[in-house]
């Protein structure tokens, strides 16, 4: 009988394995499997998310998948390469607008020439959109963002740390300005325009190959609702990009990026071309952002240019810091936490508002927390102007601000760091090292 010897490594491949232990493999597949079962409406499993997020939980959860792809791109740039950028939302926007220009409904290619018309600035009717299928617009969204990324990167890779962060803020404002300037791409500045739908077509035929915008049977096998179809599609995309990210991390490129992160001068001395790999890091990250942005906008259907703002970039910083910088698992933890907590808080407040005047403990709690006109509850139920009491929306910013500070001070490795500590505690059992 031969025993398992996990530490006996006979090839470097074992060291670089994606999920090195059978426990990790099992846990990973079990997690994905439960996730899918929950989405399919398995009685108990779907009850857990609907307790926190309400019956339509599948929508906010699906919404985080495209954001997850963008977050992975941010991980490559910030977590692997160590380049702190705040311009991530800009690249998402670039991807989204490439997608909508190619795939959206519009007035043909003529409308895509900027300022084609003297009155174009005011002409809301003329919109750039060629109605091409997804297999064109989705990859092009990534490639477009990458090209823009490469365009700006010579400037970006010359500065580092805080200077890079500030330099990339500039991108956000350029993006917002362009959004205002080019309505033929961006649509109305306040309300945006419609994005192409998530469906597979060969070309512009009537019935799509894979339909994701109506309920029905998929592949003649299983009956799914529209939401479930999009859930599985976007989850699949996230998984694909997760695997690619892991492969980048454990490849030559990933090791070069991490060497630059740890000490750029030392990396250069060891023979890692700094400029080249910073550029590669920037380009890959932009590609992810472009894909993420395109999918995000398509899933949401209509996005206003003002969405691609500094706040979205800050979201990614929160995801990385709270989740744990440098690991995919940490990024996913941060993603779930940062993107779903506001939803949970919102649902909780709605529930509290229902409890008002009910009496009993819940009524009392609701009365203390919520404000309706005269009393001193800290949370405003009605969307009010900025000021005290604050709305749930504003409270979320406060909560994340505090959380980022707390994690920076007490657990720089984020949620994943907490897990690592728990794991190492038991790994060393019965000793401490």
């Amino acid at each position, binding site marked *: *009988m031969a025993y398992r*010897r996990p530490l006996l*490594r*006979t090839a*470097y491949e074992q*060291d670089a394995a994606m999920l090195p232990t059978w426990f990790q493999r099992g846990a990973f597949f079990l997690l994905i499997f439960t996730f899918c079962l929950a989405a399919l409406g398995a009685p108990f499993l779907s009850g857990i998310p609907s307790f926190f997020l309400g019956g339509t939980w599948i929508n906010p959860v699906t919404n985080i998948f495209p954001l997850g792809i963008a977050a992975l791109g941010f991980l490559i740039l910030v977590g692997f390469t160590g380049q702190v950028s705040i311009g991530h939302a800009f690249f998402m926007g670039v991807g989204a607008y490439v997608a909508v220009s190619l795939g959206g409904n519009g007035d043909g290619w003529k409308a895509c020439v900027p300022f084609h018309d003297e009155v174009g600035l005011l002409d809301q009717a003329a919109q750039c959109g060629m109605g091409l299928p997804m297999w064109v617009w989705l990859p092009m969204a990534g490639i477009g963002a990458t090209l823009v990324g490469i365009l700006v990167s010579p400037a970006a890779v010359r500065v580092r740390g805080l200077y890079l962060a500030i330099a990339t803020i500039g991108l956000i404002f350029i993006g917002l300005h362009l959004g205002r300037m080019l309505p033929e791409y961006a649509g109305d500045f306040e309300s945006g325009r419609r994005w192409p739908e998530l469906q597979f077509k060969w070309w512009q035929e009537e019935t799509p190959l894979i339909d994701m915008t109506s309920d029905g049977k998929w592949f003649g096998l299983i009956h799914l609702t529209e939401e479930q179809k999009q859930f599985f599609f976007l989850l699949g995309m996230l998984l694909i990009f997760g695997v690619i990210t892991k492969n980048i991390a454990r490849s030559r490129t990933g090791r070069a990026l991490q060497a630059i992160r740890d000490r750029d001068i030392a990396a250069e001395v060891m023979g890692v071309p700094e400029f080249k790999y910073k550029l590669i890091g920037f380009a890959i990250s932009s590609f992810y952002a472009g894909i993420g942005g395109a999918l995000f906008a398509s899933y949401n259907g209509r996005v206003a240019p003002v969405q691609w703002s500094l706040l979205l970039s800050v979201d990614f910083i929160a995801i990385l810091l709270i989740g744990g910088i440098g690991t995919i698992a940490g990024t996913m933890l941060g993603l779930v936490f940062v993107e779903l907590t506001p939803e949970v808080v919102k649902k909780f407040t709605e529930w509290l508002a229902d409890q008002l005047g009910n009496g009993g403990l819940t009524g009392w709690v609701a009365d203390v927390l919520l404000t309706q006109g005269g009393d001193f509850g800290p949370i405003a139920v009605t969307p009010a102007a900025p000021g005290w009491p604050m709305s749930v929306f504003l409270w979320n910013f406060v909560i994340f601000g505090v959380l980022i500070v707390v994690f920076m001070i007490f657990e720089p490795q984020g949620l994943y760091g907490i897990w690592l500590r728990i794991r190492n505690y038991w790994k060393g*059992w*019965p000793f*401490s090292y």
Partner: protein
Amino acid sequence: MSVTEERVSPSSMGGQGAKTVASLAKGWADRSPKHVAMREKDFGIWLEADWAETWDRIEIAAHGLLALGIDVGDRVSIHAEDRPEWVILDIATVAVRGITVGLYPTNPAAEVEYLLQDSGSKVHLAEDQEQYDKVDEIDPSNIAEMSTIIYVEERGFASTNDQRLLSWSDFLDKGREHRKNNPGAVAQRMAAAEDDDVMTLVYTSGTTGPPKGAMLTNKNSMFAMEKIIDETSAYPDGKAPNQNDQILTYLPLCHVAERIFSTWTMLAGGPTLNFAESIETVPQNLREIQPTLFFAVPRIWERLHAGTIIRGGDASRFKKIWLNAGMKAANSIGEAKVANGGSHTAKSRILHAIFYPLIFRAMQEKIGLRHCRRAASGAAPIAPEVLAFFMGIGIEVYELYGMTENSAVATCNFPGRLKLGTVGEAYAGIGLRIDDETGEIQTSHDGVFAGYWNKPEKTAETMTDDGWLRTGDVGEWVDGTHVKIVDRMKDIIITSGGKNISPSEIENTLKASPFIKEAMVVGDGRKYLTALIGIEMDTVGDWALRQDLSYTTYRDLTTKPEVQELVQGVVNDCNEKFARVEGLKKFQLIPKELDHEDGELTATQKLKRSAMIEHFGDLVESMY
């Protein structure tokens, strides 16, 4: 038993040839060419070599030796750490009916000169520049017989201009060419091998006088395999070593014990041989390999024990609570098993069942012996406390006894009949007796060596008139079946009061403390006993840090009154276990770490008493 080189008779053509380590290796290559024979760690991963590849390299090396003109009975010396080349050259030498001479990597230049001169080695393997430098110092005319020096590590040889030098890869190239031109030359030699061919010279460590080369024959090695390795009743699960077993080799291969428990075990049963990176990395390599068969000298067992205690002391508070409970249980289990011949009692079995999943399993895994199905200790006496500890956490360590001159075949503790403090029972079918008058243990069997190389008068001294081997160890029977070693005959202390005292028992009790590395009891012809004690730098240093005691060097540490007090405590505990006359009145700490190079230790890390008295005479006198 005559002791001459004439035994090496000219090769008789044809026939099968005697069973040798080489023929066994060939057998494995024929039967299971794809099974992993050896693993060596290189840049973080264990590189594997299967039997087909290993035998191929052995055969090439054997042809290489033929190309270098190695004739029947010529000596090939190997001066290297444990590495595949050691084993390959060793087996290749036997294949061409040469004689392997192993040198300890720690042997200083002067000893290397003596060993090479005494053995008259013709081909020498110096693994790297460090070992080559020791040969380079010798006047070539003193070792005129040596024609070739093979080196393995190329670094540092670029500018060396020595006609005798040959790199390992060039040596193999020579072998390949020779094989092409003379296919079957090695097979021919192997077919002519005889049982009485001397296969190796094992130099005794020489606690007194210069080392003597014990000649072991093919017959000796086969007998040792039969008795020590293939005796299924010595294994708790009743299975002899097989291909599922893993061995970690880390002790010097020139020592007969390591040769038996690694190379010969691999050849007898087919386990995979894993080479540890160095003696310092043994704990880590153990964790990686998790060997199923493990032999260690007491020093290693003491270090594993001390390491466990220290790491336990560093554990966090919650873990300490569990550890303490586990240690209590281990003590109680250990006691119960010691009293029951090494087997579980009902109570100890229940305790083990409770604490195994909680503590012992993880602890065994951390030590690296979780899958170990047989652990053994030998080559020097070990403190029973250490064995009891391991027994308590579920690793039964069987102490065994033997010496180079009888191919290590003498006694062994068997599962279920284990008696702590004894070295066990004689193997079935061998001659073992204790001389009534002197109490000396004597053996007679096929494993008894062919004599000392070029020293017939010394050989005669170690043989009794009726042809039994005198081991030089004083022993006594326990319950008529088990043998207890009292001490080396010449080490027994007779105080001025006329009391006979065995110092090793006292020394081992001292050494069971994690703080003490070396101890030497003095008192021959004196009024009372005293001791020279060497502290264990790691553990005492760790202890000092905890006490907020700052220190700079080993010497500085030994002069701290707190450390003196600490050792005094250990000495007091030790004195309580012995009779009054055996108590230590005083002790002195040795101000330096003992070293082979300085002549205080033998190559096997045994104290050289005479050298110690010489070096630290002042310290000894200061105690009287």
